[in-house]
């Protein structure tokens, strides 16, 4: 069985981003970039399925600028067998990424596509669902447990107030929640070994995908923060305020 894992290059989750001075976008120049943490979980899950003998090949794919190759190397240092880079300098919107991935799926014919449930930059939470729609496949989003068999996958997914279990025939798309696993630490020899693994480059043109934007970002701004915290000395004073001043307690 072959698993395709889609990974996105995003601003590292420890870094606070700011809007550009003119409000035209997000200033990400010179910031540390990493693999989207949810996608790391997806890579880890594919590798665990391979180590359990259920998967033969794990292929990672990323769409975007040349530097996406770095996170593809990271995915191979984690253990992915090979990688595909859909190279373009044009900004990519989630629908375009879903179309690019659908075209890659048609070439690669995986039985399962794993990706993070959302990327921590645009927080869109869309690509997995759109990819499965474009392919006419089933979807299991927000997975917290994946039980893969020959012809089907049983997925436990996080829902409001608990979890539910779905069973999907293969092929299908599964998007991963943070709870699914804890990604492994990468050992130095694996980083070196990953440099020798195959990384092929494709283009949107060769995949026949149109990248026309479906929306324009008109403005990016910092959220309004106008609160002044009043430090209270003790709980008696606090309760008095909550009851009489703010009236949020009876």
């Amino acid at each position, binding site marked *: 069985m072959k698993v395709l894992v889609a990974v996105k290059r995003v601003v590292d989750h420890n870094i606070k981003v700011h809007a550009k001075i003119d409000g035209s976008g997000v200033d990400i120049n010179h910031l540390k970039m990493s693999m989207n943490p949810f996608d790391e979980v997806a890579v880890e899950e594919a590798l665990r399925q391979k180590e359990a003998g259920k998967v033969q090949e794990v292929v990672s794919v990323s769409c975007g600028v040349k530097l996406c190759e770095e996170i593809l190397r990271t995915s191979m240092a984690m253990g992915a067998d090979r990688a595909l880079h859909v190279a373009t300098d044009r900004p990519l*919107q989630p629908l375009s990424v879903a179309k690019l991935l659908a075209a890659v799926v048609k070439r690669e014919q995986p039985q399962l596509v794993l990706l993070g449930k959302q990327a921590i930059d645009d*927080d869109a939470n869309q690509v997995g669902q759109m990819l499965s729609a474009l392919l006419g496949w089933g979807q*299991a989003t927000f997975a917290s447990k994946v039980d893969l068999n020959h012809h089907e996958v049983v997925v436990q997914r996080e829902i409001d107030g608990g979890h539910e*279990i779905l069973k999907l025939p293969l092929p299908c798309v599964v998007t991963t929640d943070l709870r699914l696993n804890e990604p492994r630490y990468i050992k130095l020899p694996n980083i070196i070994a990953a440099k020798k693994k195959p990384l092929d480059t494709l283009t949107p043109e060769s995949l026949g995908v149109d990248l026309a934007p479906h929306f324009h970002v008109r403005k*990016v*701004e910092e959220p309004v923060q106008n609160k002044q915290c009043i430090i209270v000395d003790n709980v008696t004073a606090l309760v008095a305020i909550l009851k009489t001043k*703010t009236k949020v307690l009876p």
Partner: protein
Amino acid sequence: MTKILVIAEHDHQQLTIDTLHAFTAAMALEGSVDVLVAGYACQSASEQASRLQGVQRVHWVDSLCYQHHLAEPLAVLIVQLIAQSGYSHVIASANIFGKNLLPRVAALLDVAPISDVIRILSCDLFSRPIYAGGLIETVESLDAIKVLSVRSTAFDEAVFCHTCAPIDKVTPENDAVSILSVYVKQHLAQSKRPELTAAKVIVAGGKGLGSSEQFHALLEPLADLLGAAIGASRSAVDAGYAPNAYQIGQTGKVVAPLLYIAIGISGAMQHLTGMKDSKIIVAINKNPEEPIFQVADYGIVGDLLDIVPALYKVLAHQ
């Protein structure tokens, strides 16, 4: 003309609270608003929808294949309805239900969905948080059909009236679409406390609680005394102090109660985005430099092991 379809989430008897917030967002578009109630034996939910103040029409679809709200058949149904009735906007809540469903609908229509809308500026201009709420972007949709998931805390709960809008019973063209996913079972955490997203008061704990035992021992009595729901930061959930269903923030629930008491929560950006719209925020933390104090209205600096029992005592004696 602006013609809006709200996709109702329900338990076949009643609409969820999130659906009532989504309806209010739809009304902000100033067009005619219809509601789709698709489920199995869901007549009472569709009747409830017909009493929403301002609704024009309810589409009621009753079939076993919509019993578990699976995205695959539901998306096909919605696309059919759009083709028949010419909707310009499709709206659902940006909760698990809407996030799972709407991108699938949008891809079938070849349009870009807009997630987590917090402000509707015009029929094609919407604001939404990015980077875990660290920034707000305003996007202009270029698509003929706008597919929007809306954040509940940004829109009021819709009200009901006594008159009923017409209910159309729709028979789907083909509810025998190929089976792409099968529902097996569901496990909902049983709790005598209110739902997080509906609670007026939330007592939330973070890593500062130190252990699962202390998390429960300190928070539960206080929550029960206040009739509050219990929430948790992601680090508290990751540390195993609380179940995932308690999680508030970027990857958990977004809440805006009247009173939010953050106990031992440092206030990572990904947590703040899930609670900073609460009316009154109280922070209890030993370090006054923690970012939680930047969004709090009132704070107490000190050891939560002393403060929380003392707070309980003062509240219990009043």
